[in-house]
């Protein structure tokens, strides 16, 4: 696996922390999957119940890398300010940069994304941009200072899997040295395995685990699929072909007509 800004992860599983039935189930999902990165966010805190403080303790106890996001941001300024606040709260240069451009698909505003990525990279952030599979945008993000790219598999929370295999394969081939993460849209472990078989370095998902009937078991299933897909890619899969080719040798076969 390629390094993420100099950090080598134990595995290619980045797991979100939202929408779980309970904090205990969230912790169990991380324990059983051994996911190496937890994505987190920032929201308004009340001085009376201080809910965020309990969540912070829970995340610390997971002992994983923390990747704060700028989820819900629709403008460059909003995303950059959120990143500043996240850096202080979570004490990390990592930022999952989301600049949302369209409400129905939650498609990134790639123009704002490139602009925000440039500002944050110049300020020393290590940006993980949530982007599309567009190669030109990807190139602009790299020029802006990003050293990781995170194309979507499908719209956030949709569970549709890898919507554009051709585009994702092209992206992998086009940027052989850049760590690539499939971020969003996965619904099943088989889709995560397919992403890793394509040569992606990690997958980032949340809803598919948190909204499963048994989130911890689903997290473990994803972990197994990610590992299998990664092993398969490293083992250099065969090329598909249109015609059949006998796998059993024909030499020495008896003549029984």
């Amino acid at each position, binding site marked *: 696996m390629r390094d993420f800004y100099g950090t080598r992860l134990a595995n290619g599983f980045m797991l979100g922390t*939202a929408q779980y039935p309970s904090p205990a189930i969230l912790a169990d999902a991380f324990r059983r999957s051994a996911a190496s990165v937890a*994505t987190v966010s*920032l*929201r*308004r805190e009340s*001085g009376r119940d201080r809910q965020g*403080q309990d969540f912070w303790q829970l995340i610390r106890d997971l002992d994983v890398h923390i990747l704060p996001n700028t989820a819900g941001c629709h403008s460059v300024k909003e995303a950059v300010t959120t990143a500043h*606040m996240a850096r202080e709260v979570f004490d990390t240069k990592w930022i999952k940069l989301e600049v949302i451009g369209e409400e129905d698909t939650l498609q990134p505003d790639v123009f704002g994304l490139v602009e925000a990525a440039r500002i944050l990279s110049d300020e020393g952030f290590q940006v993980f941009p949530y982007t599309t599979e567009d190669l030109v945008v990807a190139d602009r993000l790299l020029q802006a200072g990003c050293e990781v790219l995170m194309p979507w598999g499908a719209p956030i929370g949709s569970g549709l899997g890898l919507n554009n295999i051709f585009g994702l394969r092209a992206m992998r081939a086009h940027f052989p040295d850049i760590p690539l993460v499939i971020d969003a849209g996965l619904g099943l472990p088989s889709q995560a395995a397919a992403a890793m078989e394509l040569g992606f370095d990690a997958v980032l998902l949340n809803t598919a685990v948190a909204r499963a009937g048994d989130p911890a078991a689903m997290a473990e299933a994803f972990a197994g699929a990610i590992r299998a897909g990664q092993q398969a890619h490293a083992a250099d899969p065969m090329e598909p072909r249109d015609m059949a080719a006998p796998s059993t040798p024909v030499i020495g076969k008896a003549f029984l007509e």
Partner: protein
Amino acid sequence: MKVQLNGDPVDMQGTTLADLLEAEGFGGARIATAVNGEFVPASLRDGHALTEGDRVEVLAPMQGG
């Protein structure tokens, strides 16, 4: 002095962002702050004077994907 704290009106004593945070129960909490849409680092809260009608945002770790 009246300010907006996370969208709600608050009648505050004192003059600085640090005063407001202490009075509203954020002492020692892991939070980040912004005033009128601009990030105010923790190190500058003591010296950040608020004025009538300022919009203060106090954010903390929360679940995210």
